């Protein structure tokens, strides 16, 4: 039971596609972890929580494990279409070989790329973001907010990731996933289709910002803090980095927690 206190290890085995195939089985859904979810320490926690949710509701899922590789999103946004398509076609080969039909991603960038840009290169799958999965599970009654930490009455503000919101028009699923908590949802001034970017998109995550008078994530954190939240909910590992950095810079780490919706869901269900 140490994992509730310390989310650094798993107490169940995460199945890989290779193992399922060897056993002659197919999963209902593939969990596409993404590079941040695989390597970034903070995002790894989100990854493990998504697995816990999948495990908890008993969906037959699998991950690619070491067979997964970058979707090519940052290469494409940086202008390197060659590298993007190399990555995409290699990934599509793996996904098609495993006969994948449905994918859930832990990252809006992976989500957008696989959903929208892979079909033209021969990879067509039903792709959902993990907040959509959580919403579906809540709607189906498979997931509630009970048995764990209570968020009742807590002030939560949700930051829309660009590639989920404006990029793909998904504004409701993450909010529905939070509504079940009976928390107090407060919107920032710039939200939904008018949401302000965290500053990481378009490969900005991997470079220093151009010179200006302020960092974008600080602008966003200032706005988030105006709502006086106890939690800032995120749905993207890159937003997570930018928002957490902002909170650190403002020295508000004690008062305000930045959590992914998967983490909030896992906590609320005592997973």
């Amino acid at each position, binding site marked *: 039971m140490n994992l509730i206190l310390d989310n650094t290890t798993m107490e169940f085995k995460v199945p890989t596609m290779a193992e399922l195939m060897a056993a002659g089985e197919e999963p209902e859904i593939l969990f596409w972890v993404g590079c941040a979810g695989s*390597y970034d320490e903070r995002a790894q926690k989100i990854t*493990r929580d998504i697995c816990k949710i999948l495990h908890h509701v008993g969906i037959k899922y699998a991950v690619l*494990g*070491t067979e997964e590789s970058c979707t090519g999103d940052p290469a494409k946004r*940086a202008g390197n279409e060659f*590298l993007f398509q190399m*990555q995409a076609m290699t990934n599509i080969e793996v996904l098609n070989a495993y006969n994948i039909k449905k994918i859930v991603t832990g990252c809006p960038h992976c989500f957008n790329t696989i959903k929208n840009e892979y079909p033209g290169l021969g990879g067509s799958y039903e792709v959902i973001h993990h907040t959509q999965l959580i919403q579906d599970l809540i709607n189906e009654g498979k997931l509630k907010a009970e048995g764990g930490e209570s968020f009742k009455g807590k002030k939560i503000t949700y930051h829309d990731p660009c590639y989920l919101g404006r990029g793909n028009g998904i504004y409701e699923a993450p909010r529905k996933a939070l509504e079940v908590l009976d928390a107090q949802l407060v919107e920032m001034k710039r939200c939904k289709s008018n949401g302000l970017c965290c500053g990481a998109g*378009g490969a*900005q995550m991997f470079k220093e910002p151009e010179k200006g008078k302020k960092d974008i994530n600080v602008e966003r954190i200032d706005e988030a803090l105006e709502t006086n939240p106890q939690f800032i909910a995120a749905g993207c590992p890159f937003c997570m980095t930018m928002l957490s950095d902002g909170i650190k810079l403002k020295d508000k780490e004690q008062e305000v927690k930045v959590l992914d919706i998967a983490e909030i869901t896992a906590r609320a269900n005592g997973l």
Partner: protein
Amino acid sequence: MVAQILFLVLTLAAIALFTVNLRKIIRNIRLGKPVDRNDQPQKRLMTMLRVAFGQSKMVVRPIPAFLHFFVYIGFVIINLEVLEIMIDGLFGTHRIFNGLGSLYNFLIGSFEILAFTVWVSCVIFLIRRNVIKLKRFSGVEMKSWPKSDANYILITEILLMSAFLLMNAADAKLQLLGASHYISAGAFPVSQYLMNILPSTESALIIVERSCWWFHIIGILAFLNYLPYSKHFHILFAFPNTYFSNLEPKGEFTNMASVTNEVKAMLDPSFVPAETEPGKFGAKDVTDLSWVNLMNAYTCTECGRCTSVCPANITGKLLSPRKIMMDTRDRITEVGKNIDKHGTEHQDGKSLLDDYISREEIWACTSCNACVEACPVNIDPLQIIMELRRFAVMEESQAPASINAMLGNIENNQAPWKYSPADRFNWAQEN
């Protein structure tokens, strides 16, 4: 008779000149690369009706939406009156449509009310730009010509509406005097209040009425010919621009077919790519962009909604999506002038990238799509930025060092960071 001939000559000259300039713009747009935007005609039509006719994206900002709506409706509906003016001008008639009876009175009355609301809206717009000095209307790209352009348009519209109302006031007064030729027709809910400031003699009133009539129609013809040189061109291009706008999710970027062929050939040596025209990757100059990008540039009315929501611009970076569009239009106009002067083969040694748009601008973009979302006529500055990045990276290998490091990592470790692919699944280690 002299007046009719003069009117005919002026009208024909104005239409001819406008046609010449419009054709130049269409030719310039066609210098862009092909892209298919003829799919899903029904969805395209609905988009145009909703966004351009219905002004659906304007409502985000209610005050300008309200004011703009009056000017827009005024423009569309008062043009019915221009039809009557045209016929009267050509045939020497006066208020030819008065046979419509009470409908005519209703129409003229409506035009007057609309003309008044246009007048008021334009005055408020001028105040917003020049007195209140709203931030959205400033910026490095809004100096000199673009700043004057907006004011010229507003002042012209105010003058045109003033002339229209004064003309009606004089006409109404002449009707009351029972002047011959000035048949009793129309309703004058606004201009009746202007009658007092007009002279009382019939001859003086006729001078006022005729002057205003000529000023109004010559003003309209002149304004028509001002459009191709102005940001105000959006009143025409908003419609095709929304019709041909991107219907796919905003997050989806195009897959370059030329690259697909090469990548397929690399991964599968037996693959024989279809014959494609060898071209450069991405865009260095405007002619490397698609015709839709260029049409976008001509459609932009420099309202600055894109720039005001751009996270890079808000935080003081050089990037301004509006400037991207204005630079693209300025450059394609220059390329077009070069063709007129020196023929199609002429190279002036300049390009959109570097001579107009700097590297610092294109690398400040977070690809967040806020600018695309904000544009009331579905212009896409992001696509231009991405094409410029593609050129910088794929043709020149010119990217910020940290971007090159990230690309190297993906190439070598299949992740943007320097981690071993063998460690990718370590997060799931059991305790």
